[in-house]
């Protein structure tokens, strides 16, 4: 008995490992009823909150159609009917993604969605927007048609004048295609997941006091 007590004492004194610290942090900050809620606050009953969901749905279609395009390649998406269809789904899903993302941005801006400890959530959204623009840009450069050549030739001067043309070469199809199908989508997806988890952890921001009173 004494041995067991001594062992418990040693275990309690020992600093927790990183797995234990991570587990405790997740249990404290992200309980399952926050991660997968079945109820939302009454003020979430507005169509403004649907824009974020539409953005995620559009991203899912972008990724799905992008995986199919990457598998079959440029010859297929230019020459076959099904390929052109999947290419169009990819393109129009991106249009929907950006429109919904900007509407989501407007909504969060006017409700000051960064309040009450949500600044990091807002800033990650800003970074997602920036990386998405870069992803779309490299996507235009990866089309393998005259439009992509036109964009690349014009962008080359802009990149050179910005001083980044030597390591971000828009005339290098392999570099642009690699960035478009791997690094940038992984970045967007990872940050979207982080953005979503942070929203779940803290909940949706409460409306601004209609009386206009801001308490310290």
């Amino acid at each position, binding site marked *: 008995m004494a041995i067991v007590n001594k062992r418990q004492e040693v275990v309690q004194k020992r600093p927790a490992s990183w797995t234990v610290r991570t587990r405790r942090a997740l249990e404290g900050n992200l309980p399952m009823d926050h991660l997968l809620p079945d109820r*939302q*606050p*009454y*003020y979430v*009953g507005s*169509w*403004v909150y649907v824009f974020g969901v539409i953005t995620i749905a559009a991203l899912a279609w972008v990724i799905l159609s992008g995986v199919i395009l990457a598998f079959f390649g440029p010859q297929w998406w230019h020459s076959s009917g099904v390929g052109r269809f999947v290419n169009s789904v990819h393109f129009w899903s991106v249009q929907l993604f950006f429109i919904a993302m900007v509407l989501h941005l407007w909504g969060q801006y006017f409700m000051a969605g960064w309040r*009450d400890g949500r600044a990091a959530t807002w800033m990650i959204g800003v970074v997602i927007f920036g990386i998405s623009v870069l992803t779309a840009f490299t996507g235009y450069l990866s089309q393998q048609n005259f439009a992509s050549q036109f964009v690349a030739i014009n962008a080359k001067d802009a990149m050179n004048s910005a001083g980044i043309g030597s390591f971000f070469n828009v005339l290098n199809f392999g570099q642009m295609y690699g960035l478009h199908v791997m690094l940038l989508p992984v970045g967007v997806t990872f940050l979207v997941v982080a953005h979503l988890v942070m929203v779940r952890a803290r909940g949706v921001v*409460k409306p601004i006091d209609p009386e206009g009173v801001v308490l310290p």
Partner: protein
Amino acid sequence: MDAPTTYLHWGFILISLPNLIVMGLMIVIFAIALVAPFPHSDKADNGDRE
């Protein structure tokens, strides 16, 4: 399809008609989202999560 689109030009502002239409539609959709009634559920709580 291959013809260049219409551009609108006021002073230093130069914008294509399709882009202007998309921006106008986005503003209209945003305004509708603010005022359109949202179907409510009895399960909504009071929002006291923290």
